[in-house]
């Protein structure tokens, strides 16, 4: 390609897109009127009311009164909306059947079945635990998955390594970095003073709390409790250890890899072990899982392992969220 062709193509492209030199004759270009810095303004301000156009009057009114009128309108409309919604809901509530009546549609034959045959079919003394882990085990699986997903999403948002790379791209706001309130405070667990009282109490109470958490989880099918509350108690023990002995100590045995490994394996065990009911229920086969006598610990089929899985997930999630908010890493 020779240069003439290139130049021709460039000019053609510029002509098509409208860029480039409009004319080669500079005399033909009209001069723009000079924009004086402050001499134009007083004329506009001093123009009388009857000399302004309608557009200018509208703009002036918006600049003067717009914000206050908008805020008043917004507040009143929000209050009116809330009152209307609450009123409609109250009318609905008044149409509900009386509280605790025996003929409620909420007390239907499902409850009869659960209460009458629940003990013999599930083997659980605690009807609620038998219901959420045997009749409705899929719901509990979903809840555990929701907990795990929440913790992982918080991990993605708040991990400290990602945050160091994220700097503001606009130079207009680089001044904010100098202010004190944007600097992260030092993590709680690197305080300089060792609290003797807290360490003494923690050394006595952490084993007791772990033991109590395990008792609550294992007796989930006998007494109220189960996986969720037992997991919360276990996370309490971890948080107390992190507060009393420093974050590094907990990081030795409970770090990000441990949490993800334990939670994923717990969810997998739950899914694989409870998946038999999809086959046996559809084909009307009796599953071979022993139910045992009601009232023993080793009874109720699969409820005990499932409780343990749920407890592991809950404990890891609650401690993980706490550590992410205060440290930036698990």
């Amino acid at each position, binding site marked *: 390609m020779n240069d003439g062709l290139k130049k021709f193509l460039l000019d053609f492209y510029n002509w098509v897109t409208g860029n480039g030199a409009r004319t080669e004759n500079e005399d033909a270009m009209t001069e723009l009127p000079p924009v004086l810095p402050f001499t134009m303004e007083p004329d506009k301000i001093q123009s009388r009311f009857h000399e302004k156009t309608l557009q200018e009057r509208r703009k002036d009114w918006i600049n003067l009164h717009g914000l206050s009128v908008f805020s008043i309108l917004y507040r009143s409309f929000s209050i009116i909306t809330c009152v209307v919604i609450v009123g409609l809901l109250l009318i609905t509530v008044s149409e509900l059947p009386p509280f605790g009546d025996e003929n409620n549609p909420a007390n239907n034959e499902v409850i009869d079945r659960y209460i009458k045959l629940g003990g013999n079919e599930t083997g659980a003394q605690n009807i609620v635990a038998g219901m959420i882990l045997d009749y409705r085990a899929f719901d509990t699986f979903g809840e555990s998955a929701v907990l795990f997903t929440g913790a992982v999403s918080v991990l993605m948002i708040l991990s400290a390594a990602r945050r160091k790379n994220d700097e503001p791209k606009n130079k207009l706001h680089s001044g904010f970095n100098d202010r004190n309130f944007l600097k992260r*405070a030092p993590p709680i667990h690197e*305080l300089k003073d060792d609290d003797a009282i807290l360490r003494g109490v923690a050394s006595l109470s952490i084993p007791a709390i772990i033991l109590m958490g395990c008792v609550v989880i294992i007796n989930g099918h006998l007494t109220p409790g189960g996986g969720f509350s037992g997991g919360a108690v276990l996370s309490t023990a971890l948080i107390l250890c992190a507060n009393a002995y420093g974050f590094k100590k907990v990081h030795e045995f409970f770090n990000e890899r441990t949490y993800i490994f334990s939670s994923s394996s717990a969810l997998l065990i739950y899914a694989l072990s409870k998946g038999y009911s999809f086959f046996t229920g559809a084909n009307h086969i009796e599953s071979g899982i022993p139910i045992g006598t009601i009232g023993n610990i080793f009874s109720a089929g699969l409820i005990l392992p499932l409780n343990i899985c749920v407890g592991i997930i809950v404990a890891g999630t609650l401690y993980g969220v706490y550590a992410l908010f205060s440290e930036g890493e698990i």
Partner: protein
Amino acid sequence: MPDIEISNAEYYLLMFCAIFLSVSIFFCLFRSALGPRFTDRVIAANMIGTKIIALISVLSLVIGEDYLVDICLIYAVISFIAVVVLARSVISNKNYQDELKEIDA
């Protein structure tokens, strides 16, 4: 488990205890909302937890079921850890602000 039968006088006494405790919980709620310093709020939260433990014990006597006492233990652990974490976070923030003032001054 058969119900532990309580007499009428015991029943009224326990109900009075329960109502009294709930009213005092309400006052603690006031203090935790109004208290100008953070120590007021922390102590009010701990007190609410303690009173709820007492309330659940009274309730287990009224109803006659014995498993509610396990829930009391869980409540005690949770309120203890809440006070510890709250106090540590506020103290660390205060130390940090003092350090910043020393740096600025």
